[in-house]
């Protein structure tokens, strides 16, 4: 049992590390975007300030489901982060970091937030949740097809295993270029970055599910968003860029991936939700399936 407790603590550490890592990189990225627009951009720790400012404010609550949903969402996401390996050696639960845990525990976070957003009684929130779910249906399937190819090629579905495989014979980004592209698009969808920012659309549905959150619920949901981004980006790094053998390598790869995604998102407008679905079920899915057939059935 003590091993389990030990790895639980490491897991919490990983989650905390993920949160701080993503918040700093988020802050740095806001500065980078600022520089891109020829302005100074906020301080690098601005994200921390925003979150702690939100936590310090006095919030309102629309009933027990409104609070329980937030707790379940953030709890689920932190649980997922606890399984995430940082480098091939630094992982909380060795051997149990299965790919499907991440996909489905992320769904718990989504369900918790969706539940409390609908529970808040605001129609804008329900519309936002509906769009988030439909978008999830869109970007998830091509991503999963690409991941099958990876799992089948590397023979194991645990992330550390895939990392070792890539370190042994080359990154998947190079050996499966099409999959890399499709997965990057799905990553944009997962992060909810601009081209696929249908569910936070501030001008259309007043920041979608977040419409009724203020104070500590809002702060906690920001924490959840940061940790979810950490999970998704590090998942992408481990699957395609050969994970990391030491921390610095992980930080570098993580920063590059997130910044590229962020820059792309800052250049784009926003799709309508059914355009997003049609988009993902046209080219990305076709390419992913073709690649899978080519790689696996050859």
């Amino acid at each position: 049992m003590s091993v389990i407790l030990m790895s639980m603590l490491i897991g919490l550490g990983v989650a905390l590390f993920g949160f701080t890592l993503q918040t700093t990189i988020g802050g740095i990225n806001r500065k980078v975007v600022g520089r891109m627009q020829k302005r100074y951009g906020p301080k690098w720790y601005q994200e921390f300030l925003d979150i702690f400012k939100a936590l310090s404010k006095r919030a309102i609550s629309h009933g027990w489901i409104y609070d329980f949903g937030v707790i379940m969402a953030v709890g689920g996401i932190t649980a997922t982060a606890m399984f995430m390996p940082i480098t091939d050696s630094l992982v909380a639960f060795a051997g149990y970091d299965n790919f499907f845990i991440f996909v489905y525990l992320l769904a718990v976070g989504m369900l918790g937030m969706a539940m409390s957003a609908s529970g808040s009684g605001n129609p804008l929130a329900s519309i936002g949740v509906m769009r988030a779910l439909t978008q999830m249906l869109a970007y998830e399937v091509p991503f999963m097809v690409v991941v099958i190819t990876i799992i089948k090629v590397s023979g194991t579905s645990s992330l550390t295993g895939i990392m070792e495989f890539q370190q042994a014979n080359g990154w998947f980004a190079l050996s499966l270029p099409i999959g890399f592209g499709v997965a990057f698009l799905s990553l944009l969808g997962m992060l909810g970055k601009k081209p696929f920012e249908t569910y936070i659309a501030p001008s259309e549905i007043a920041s979608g599910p977040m419409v009724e959150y203020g104070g500590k619920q809002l702060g906690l949901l920001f924490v959840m968003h940061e940790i979810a981004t950490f999970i998704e980006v590090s998942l992408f790094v481990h699957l395609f860029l050969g994970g990391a053998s030491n921390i610095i390598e992980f930080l570098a790869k993580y920063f590059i991936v997130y910044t590229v995604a962020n820059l792309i998102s800052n250049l784009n407008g926003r799709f309508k939700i059914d355009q997003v679905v049609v988009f993902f079920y046209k080219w990305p899915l076709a390419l992913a399936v073709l690649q899978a057939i080519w790689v696996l059935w050859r």
Partner: protein
Amino acid sequence: MFSIELVVLSTLLAGVLAYIVSIKLPKLGSYLTILASLAVFSVLAYFGFNNNLDAEVNLIPQFVLFKTSMFGLYFAIIVSFIFFMVSFFNPYFIKDYKYPAAYNLFYLMALAGTIGVFFASNFITLFIFFEIVVWTSMFLIPLGKKRKPTVTYFVFSTVGSFAMLYAVMFTFSITGSFDLAAISVLSGKSALLVYILLAVAGFAKLGAYPFYVWLPKVLGKSPDPVSAVFSGGIEKLGAFIAFMAILRISPASIYLEAVGMYLQNYVIAIFGAITIVVGTLQAIRQDDAKKLLAYSSASNGGYILVAIAMSSSISLTGAMYHILAHALASTAAFLAIAVVHYRTKTTKISELGGMIHHMPLTYMVYLMAIISMAGIPPMGGFISKWLIFQAVINKQMIIVAVATFFGSIGSFLYVFRPLAALFLGQKLPKYKGVKEAPFLMMIPLIILTLGSFYIGVIPNQVIDFSNKVIAEFGFGPLLMNEFGIQGANGTLSAPIIASVFGLGVVVIAIIFFILPKSRKVGLMDTYTSGEFIYTEELLHYSADFYAPFERLYPAKPLISKVYAMIKEKVNELGRFFKYWFFTNKPEVTVLWIVLILTLLVWGDIL
């Protein structure tokens, strides 16, 4: 020592007794159904586990022979458990049936029939009890809102059972015996024919692609306990027959090494995949919660088919596990919707809203049920879906994998629709007086939730049982170390995931409650971009919930048009014969006589 024959006979007897009792007082009759199903379940579970159920038959006159097998026991326990859980709802729904006495009788006869099917030792017994289940459950349907679905149900089930009968008779004509093992003796063309026919029988009962049209009609319109029993229990007959068909018969056919399966198994997997996709797409757009759950059980039937078709020890454990998890989850969901129907007299999502304020416990039950149905970690559904994914990836079936992923994410969409539009949202004034579910209804809901929670966190016991079942079909057991399940390419440890999830929630809850308390605010006090809105209906979003997604595909699936056309053709043929041959003119008969004679004379005979 408890004989199966005694169980079946006592259930039939209890049915007749319930009929007699409920002529005078129907409520007592329905309490009797609870006791009877409890007895059946406890006997099967107790005697089954320390396997001293004996199978010799001395009272039932002819044809009927039983045999105990772990395979039959697994199904029997699940189905009798579902019957027992649903029977708690009978007393509350009994008063709005036209023939309450008949309801209690047929309810218990259906239970007896299913037990008979699972323990049958030869095909004739299996067919007799299969048909008993068909016609008794058929008479349960018209007690609900509409009568027409009964005929649809009868047609599809009879297509299935007649296909099975033909297969049975065909094997009899070749091998000369009705025994269950007889079908594995067949080979070549005849094995293929029997395989197809048994698959048709499994498809019709399970509600798979070509024959799923009856499922939404019947489950949507029949009384609530009946639709719960259908989706949880009676559908499992189809899985039982699909298991037998796919695993016992090995017709000669090409082996596709790309997917590591025989051609006919791959075709079954493809049909299963189509069922998943069609079921999910249709479920997403349903406005009636019961129809939505009906389509979801069709899509889950597709999962079971895919898992069986892959026929490896992982996929079969996944199939067995999914049958159990789906039975618990979908029955809990149906019963939750039944509570809503019992209290508000409607299951239309667009008319309902804010049920959580009236019935929070039912809400929690429904939430746990959909977590399991969507395959989310702490609940049973996740493990079965994980096993099926392991097998799909291991067999590298790309198209079927796309369908399964689409199904699992899609299931997240359609289970969420009633949750958001029916339970959450504004507290509509027209449901002011609605109260929580009565106590007796609460018992099964809680037991089902705890059940699916238990199989989600500690899968060891269920996997041991299913290992024994698979061994009967000659497959190696699934490896289990004390924490993780050994999948094809990774291990999954359910208890660790559940405890980590719990830890995460606890940590965040502590943070949440340290921070200053938040101010309670009514639901109507929301951001309406400065506009003053006083009516709840305006602020409740429940009608056509996934409108942008629904615009992308047609409402009515093509297959139901095909069936309507067939029905029309039969009617036309009937009118043709009536017009030509049954007129009042005797000269028509004489004409036919002369024609036949000339045919005879003109023929080579004279």
